[in-house]
């Protein structure tokens, strides 16, 4: 079974702090994704990566950056946290780049509160 592990289930940080969310997958997947999930808005893609050191902006990249130094690890960085970044953050991975139907496998999320 694919395992996607997010480093923290709950995190509380202060406005202006630099925040790191970590994600590790154990299935040698090429693609990794960061989403945020908010009530009434669904899952929105922040950034994704299809290879080591490669990254692509998703639909809402403002205020975030990412790092992928190793294939199994994808980090989301909040450069200067703000209260509107309080949310559930979900990491996912999938195999292949342009193959059909690459289903994404999700971690259990990090609930981040910015005070």
């Amino acid at each position, binding site marked *: 079974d694919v395992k996607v592990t997010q480093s923290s289930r709950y995190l509380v940080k202060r406005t202006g702090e630099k925040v790191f969310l970590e994600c590790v997958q154990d299935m040698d997947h090429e693609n990794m994704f960061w989403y945020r999930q908010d009530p009434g808005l669904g899952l929105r893609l922040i950034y994704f990566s299809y290879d080591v050191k490669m990254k692509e902006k998703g639909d809402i990249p403002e205020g975030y950056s990412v790092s992928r130094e190793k294939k199994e690890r994808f980090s989301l960085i909040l450069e200067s946290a703000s209260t509107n970044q309080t949310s559930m953050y979900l990491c996912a991975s999938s195999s292949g780049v342009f193959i059909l139907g690459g289903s*994404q496998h*999700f971690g259990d999320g990090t609930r981040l509160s910015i005070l």
Partner: protein
Amino acid sequence: EDQVTQSPEALRLQEGESSSLNCSYTVSGLRGLFWYRQDPGKGPEFLFTLYSAGEEKEKERLKATLTKKESFLHITAPKPEDSATYLCAVQNTGTASKLTFGTGTRLQVTL
């Protein structure tokens, strides 16, 4: 821009009462349509991928179907353990692995 709309927002069923969830989509070129189940406090869990109109997939009490404009998730004789939020997502042929999600249908099955 790809769009996914799910209805109803919430659905309450009695055990054994069959029903369907709807996912309407707009996409320039459909590579695949995905259904996920999400339990409270957990990440989404993959259920099905559908690729072309007319296709159907089944898993236990769940059956997913696809037309050119929408997909249905039929739940036959549901049980309380089927209670969850069901998410629909589409993948565009032009955007590689990216998925666009709907906001989900929250299903509650009572005894």
